[in-house]
């Protein structure tokens, strides 16, 4: 326990002095499949998404970011309607005055301009070689396109932008400069377990799929309270679909068809609001049911649901049963506790009770220290829903999932569950 504490304190020292937050981004092209994945670990829960339809010569774009950066919104990653994908990953160097030799200043956010104007990795490289991007002084950018190319651009020697292209059919970036990979003696001291895991997995695989990427993101994500995984996403360059997982919850996925979403016009939304905390509970995966009827059970905060049942995982011939959740009201316990706390403090001040004041101030100090950690909201909803189904056939394999439709009209799905029926 104490070793863990020392480790934790050392980690805090290192992290607070270097402000390096763990993220992982990768893309691979195997056969006809071309996918990119990203795990965004950070201490800000206010993740946002922006939809910009194409207009006046600019490509449509979908951007992930955070709102509370003094800039109202800061782009961290995204994809455009041409299938150009990017993500920023923080690195250890802190050079806010970085200015790449031979580049000119650009007053806006260069990554946004890249999505506005570029369709390929080559065009993105040309843009970063023309304009200065100060962000390169503290992070590197991973860019991939629908043609199976990718590149990592980062601070290079003598204030240049180092362009490190994919070597093979995949590329990975985490939180060390990819230039170190060419120097084994240097890489030995920055080697990243997340990088090693992704590199090994993609090197050993003959096929890539959303499921494989989901498994990778599960392994490299962070379920703790220090820089937790705020969101994970997988982009399929062939279908134009983005699979998004919120707060390290891989039980629920939001699938966005980028073209369809961009066609709906400009929108600026909180990412967590697009999720319903839906989770399939019963029948559990691989369960055996000994009756023609079963009571499906799930949890979630959505308004409307669809129960999908089929005999294959693709749900090619599904039975879809609609369900609407009863309305619930939640009590605001947070405000009540805050009120009691303020009253307690006031009484302490008026009556000059040192013990009471010390207690209140200690709690306030501890609450302040809590900023070091991020209290990730639970991924489990308290709302339980059930629906009966009476037409199961004996000796069959069934797949089921729940599609949740939330108040903003976004649909999320549970992971697919399988169960078999006995011969009754």
């Amino acid at each position, binding site marked *: 326990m*104490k070793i863990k504490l*020392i480790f934790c304190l*050392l980690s805090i020292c290192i992290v607070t002095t270097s402000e390096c937050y763990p993220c992982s981004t990768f893309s691979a092209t195997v056969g006809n499949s071309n996918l990119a994945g990203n795990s965004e670990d950070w201490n800000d829960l206010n993740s946002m998404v922006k939809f910009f339809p194409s207009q006046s010569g600019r490509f449509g774009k979908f951007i992930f970011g955070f709102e509370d950066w003094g800039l109202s919104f800061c782009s961290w990653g995204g994809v455009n309607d041409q299938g150009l994908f990017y993500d920023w990953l923080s690195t250890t160097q802190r050079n806010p005055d970085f200015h790449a030799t031979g580049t000119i200043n650009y007053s806006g956010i260069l990554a946004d301009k890249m999505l506005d104007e570029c369709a390929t990795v080559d065009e993105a490289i040309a843009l970063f070689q023309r304009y200065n991007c100060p962000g390169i002084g503290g992070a590197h950018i991973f860019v991939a396109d629908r043609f199976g190319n990718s590149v990592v651009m980062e601070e290079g020697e003598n*204030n240049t932008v180092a362009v490190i292209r994919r070597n093979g059919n995949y590329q990975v970036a*985490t939180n060390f400069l990819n230039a170190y990979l060419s120097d084994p003696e240097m890489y030995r001291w920055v080697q990243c377990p997340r990088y090693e895991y992704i590199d090994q997995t993609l090197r050993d695989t003959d096929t890539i799929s959303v499921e494989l990427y989901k498994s990778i993101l599960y392994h490299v994500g962070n379920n703790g309270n220090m820089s937790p995984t705020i969101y994970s996403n997988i982009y399929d360059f062939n279908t134009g679909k983005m699979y998004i997982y919120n707060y390290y919850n891989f039980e629920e996925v939001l699938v966005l068809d980028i073209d369809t979403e961009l066609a709906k016009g400009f929108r600026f939304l909180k990412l967590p609001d697009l999720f319903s905390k839906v989770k399939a509970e019963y029948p559990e995966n691989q369960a055996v049911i000994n009756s023609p009827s079963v009571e499906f059970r799930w949890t979630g905060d959505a308004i409307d649901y669809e129960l999908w049942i089929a005999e294959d995982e693709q749900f090619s011939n599904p039975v879809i049963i609609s369900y609407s959740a009863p309305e619930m009201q939640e009590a605001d316990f947070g405000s009540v506790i805050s009120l009691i706390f303020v009253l307690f403090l006031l009484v302490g001040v008026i009556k000059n009770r040192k013990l009471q004041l010390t207690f209140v101030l200690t709690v306030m100090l501890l609450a302040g220290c809590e900023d070091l950690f991020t209290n990730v909201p639970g991924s489990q909803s308290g709302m339980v829903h059930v629906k009966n189904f009476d037409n199961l056939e004996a000796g069959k394999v069934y797949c089921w999932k729940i599609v949740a439709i939330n108040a903003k009209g976004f649909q999320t799905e549970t992971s697919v569950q399988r169960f078999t029926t006995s011969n009754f």
Partner: protein
Amino acid sequence: MKITLTVFFLLLYTADSFSQSRLQTGLTIGYNSSTFLGDDKPGEKLDPIPGLYLGGIIHYPLNERFSLVSNVALCLRGTKINTFNEISEPVLFVYLDIPLMARMNFLPGRIITPYAELGGAFDVNILSIGLSGPYYDVRKFDFGMVSGVGIRLGKILLEMRYHLGLTHFDRSELESDLRHSTLSFLLGLTFGK
């Protein structure tokens, strides 16, 4: 950690029981500045990294001029690897440092007693960590040579000590020729007479 503390207090207790009259115990705290030495130094250059030295003192006088000195202390070592454009990558190690040194006192019997010491050190690696996480391929045990100079003012000790690692601590596939080099500035307080 429990083992470390148990060993520390056991040593202090044993030492104290061993000779109530001659053996002295105490506490020491200090500042370390450490880096790597060796032929396989990573990056363009290495910069020292600051660290903490914290533990106990065991002092056994043999006569007025000579004594044996040991510590059981937690010691933070490491380095900052400079790659290019002054980019720095920190590497940190926590060791349980147990030096054993012969000390020669100059001007014995005076209020201010300068001294010099020389000996060896046995170190146990407790934790090795970089920005990407812990390293699991660092040698558990390290041996080194220690030398130092200091002054004694009654029960207070002020000392400058240099620790030269003799073990190649890298246990990765590269088996790099790397050793620790640590300069410490220590403040000690002895108990008893």
